[in-house]
């Protein structure tokens, strides 16, 4: 650039957040002495309206062509200032931000050291800014369609509302049926409806929409591109049973393999060929190939020739503008013997007892344990939550207290001479669900509060005793129980890690997916165009998951309603004159964004700007310096590094 470089440097006080530790005036004075700097100023809040105006006015007054702001983390205000300089007529990528708050004033108590560090960082940033060149955002045409991953209640809600807004929706579910855990909840607290009926109403509405395509027994195996134009590959695993199936059930009778039925949370067993549950969508049998021995008995008895054991998986590629991740949770699985788990038939989880209490469940709602109607029923709350349990997280699972109350009330209603204990830490029937707690108290349910983990003793005959220290009286109680229910909470989905290898979204410490910002950008993933909904982000009730799903749909529509979105131009570009065609870069690219083209008879690398995500790994590997990352060229980073020492 032949034009003279004119840098403006702005140091933010951030009230006393920065100025309390950094001598802002000293840094400003120092910045004004740096080569290329025309003006350096400080201001109490650079991000405020007047702060931004100060920069805009200076750009005009001093003909600035580079702007450096030393303030907070760029994660907070890089976009704010880029927009401000753009409004003053300067290319937004001629702006550089210096983090002197999170990385400096907030972590260093010593004023002299913090001031020296701020000076160093500003010097490095000015050196970098001088090398910056104007860049144009990449314009991406928006595909007016969405990929919703996960067919539980959050995914269904998101899919339905996007479809109703008129967008094409591809809904992908790993299991052979839609509905997730919600479909197996017999009574949804507060809503007062059955889970399967709730799911049914969503699914029916979705099926009536021409712009919805549902893929069950499927998963997403590849996702590339960005907001507006994601390319996804959907793998449709074989079901081995076609739509010709008339549900006669002959196959199930002859199938020799029995495994625990995961749709009843292992409460009963099922065959290798099975109907997930009464209201499954689609209502078709499916074969679990992990269990199947390929004996062929089912094929022989099927009267409509619906079974094909040779069916293979298929793939479908779709291009979508947005992705909504709603893969939900899995119940906490206690370790064997933890609170007596799996030591006796009389120990059930909260998810199992709900199946047992379901009028349409395996026992038609009859509560029979070991052939007898239990008289003393004990619930232990918080198993798998709040640090109770060997693999438990520290979070509260939100859904369990209310569910325990509902179950306890049902049991009291159906077995009037029963005694029900709820051993809990804190009872968190928050919001309107507190009503259930009142009803439980009125319904003679007995509450015991614990702090030490209760001890569960299982005798060789299988009878159970729970030893618990009652906090309120400070005494140990020994409760013999006919039925023990572990109030298990929510854990991150079993397959979540696998899903996240394809859909790149980060997790928090507890293993749930993190939203970009809980208050400023909820339901959004940090990556533009990817949204997260439901219990995949942490424990949620059914109602909350629906709200979350709809919120994600609504946020996603902010992209889908546009014709174009712009993407940051920090992508790799090839200097074709320098490229020798060695193609080391191709092996580096995790996105297959690099291909080749022929230029004057020689082979050179070519970057697909839509697919490139801008990591810069190919740049670091290029031996000739032909591959460069826009905005982070070697030239720019080297200038910043060379300014490390004054």
């Amino acid at each position, binding site marked *: 650039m032949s034009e003279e470089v004119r840098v403006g440097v702005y140091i933010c006080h951030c009230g006393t957040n920065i100025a309390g530790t950094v001598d802002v005036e000293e840094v400003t004075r120092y910045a004004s002495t740096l080569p290329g700097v025309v003006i350096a100023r400080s201001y109490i809040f650079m991000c405020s309206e007047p702060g931004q105006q100060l920069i805009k006015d200076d750009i005009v007054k001093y003909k600035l062509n580079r702007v450096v702001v030393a303030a907070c983390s760029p994660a907070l205000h890089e976009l704010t200032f880029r927009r401000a300089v753009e409004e003053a007529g300067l290319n937004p990528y001629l702006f550089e931000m210096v983090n002197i708050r999170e990385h400096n004033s907030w*972590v260093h*108590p010593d004023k002299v050291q913090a001031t020296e560090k701020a000076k160093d960082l500003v010097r490095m940033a000015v050196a970098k800014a001088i090398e910056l060149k104007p860049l144009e955002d990449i314009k991406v045409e928006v595909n007016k369609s969405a990929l919703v991953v996960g067919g539980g209640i959050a995914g269904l809600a998101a899919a339905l509302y996007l479809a109703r807004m008129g967008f094409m929706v591809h809904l992908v579910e790993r299991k052979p049926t839609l509905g997730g855990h919600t479909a197996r909840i017999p009574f949804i607290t507060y809503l007062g409806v059955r889970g399967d009926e709730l799911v049914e109403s969503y699914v029916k509405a979705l099926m009536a929409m021409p712009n919805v395509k549902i893929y069950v027994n499927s998963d997403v195996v590849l996702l590339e591109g960005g907001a507006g134009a994601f390319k996804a590959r959907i793998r449709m695993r074989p079901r081995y049973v076609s739509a010709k199936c008339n549900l006669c059930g002959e196959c199930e009778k002859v199938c020799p393999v029995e495994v625990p039925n995961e749709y009843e949370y292992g409460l009963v067993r099922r065959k290798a060929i099975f109907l997930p549950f009464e209201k499954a969508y689609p209502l078709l049998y499916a074969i679990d190939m992990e269990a199947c021995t390929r004996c062929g008995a089912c094929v022989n008895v099927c009267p409509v020739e619906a079974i094909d054991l040779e069916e293979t998986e298929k793939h479908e590629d779709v291009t979508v503008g947005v992705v909504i991740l709603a893969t939900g949770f899995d119940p906490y699985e206690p370790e064997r013997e933890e609170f007596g788990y799996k030591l006796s038939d009389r120990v059930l989880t909260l998810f199992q007892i709900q199946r047992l209490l379901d009028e349409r469940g395996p026992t038609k709602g009859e509560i029979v344990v070991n052939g007898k109607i239990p008289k003393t029923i004990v619930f232990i709350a918080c198993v798998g939550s709040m640090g109770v349990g060997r693999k438990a997280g520290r979070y509260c699972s939100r859904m369990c207290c209310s569910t325990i109350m509902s179950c306890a009330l049902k049991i009291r209603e159906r077995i009037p001479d029963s005694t029900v204990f709820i051993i809990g830490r804190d009872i968190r029937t928050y919001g309107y669900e507190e009503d259930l707690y009142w009803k439980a108290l009125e319904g003679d349910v007995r509450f015991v509060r614990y702090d030490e983990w209760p001890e569960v003793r299982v005798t060789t005959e299988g009878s159970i005793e729970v030893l618990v220290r009652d906090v309120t009286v400070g005494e140990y109680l020994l409760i013999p129980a006919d039925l023990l229910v572990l109030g298990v909470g929510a854990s991150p989905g079993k397959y979540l890690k696998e899903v996240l290898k394809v859909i790149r979204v*980060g997790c928090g410490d507890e293993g749930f997916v993190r939203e970009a910002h809980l208050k400023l950008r909820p339901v959004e993933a940090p990556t533009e165009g990817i949204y997260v909904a439901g219990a995949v982000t942490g424990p949620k009730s059914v109602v909350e998951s629906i709200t979350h799903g709809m919120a994600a749909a609504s946020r996603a529509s902010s992209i889908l309603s546009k014709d174009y979105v712009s993407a940051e131009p920090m992508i790799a570009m090839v200097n074709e004159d320098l490229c020798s065609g060695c193609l080391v870069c191709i092996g580096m690219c995790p996105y297959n964004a690099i291909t080749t083209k022929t230029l004057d008879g020689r082979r050179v690398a070519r970057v697909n700007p839509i697919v490139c995500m801008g*990591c*810069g790994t190919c740049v*670091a590997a290029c031996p000739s310096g032909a591959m460069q990352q826009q905005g982070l060229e070697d030239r720019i980073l080297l200038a910043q*590094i060379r300014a490390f*020492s004054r």
Partner: protein
Amino acid sequence: MSEGYEPKILMFACNWCSYAAADLAGTSRMKVPHNIRIVRVMCSGRVDPQLIIEAFTSGADGVLVTGCRIGDCHYIEGNYKTLRRIILLKKALEQLGIESERLRLEWIAASDAKRFVEIAVDTVERLRKLGPLKRHFDELSRVIEEVRGIE
């Protein structure tokens, strides 16, 4: 080593994990040694050996390269490429007369501010023991020119 010696450290941080962890250390008001200056890149995979050598010649006593944990990389496997590169570069550094301990590669999750602080403290401690980097600049630049010539 000389009393009161403060090593100068240049840290490359990836936008998604380690930079965010350093931010979190700030918002959590943790105490971090003042010796570190962070250069932000999008991915640790962008950190070219050339940049690291430049940092040493530009006055750094130590260089920290940081990225997302293996398997958590925002760009799928950029950090894995970094790992391979750093292993090789450490060997080359010894030949340039720079102790390989001066280059350190660490994975820091965005939520793990504590780990960022621990690594920062430990790196300063180790470099204090090593003392200032003895720079044979003429020698070094001759070797670098040679290396560039080979490329």
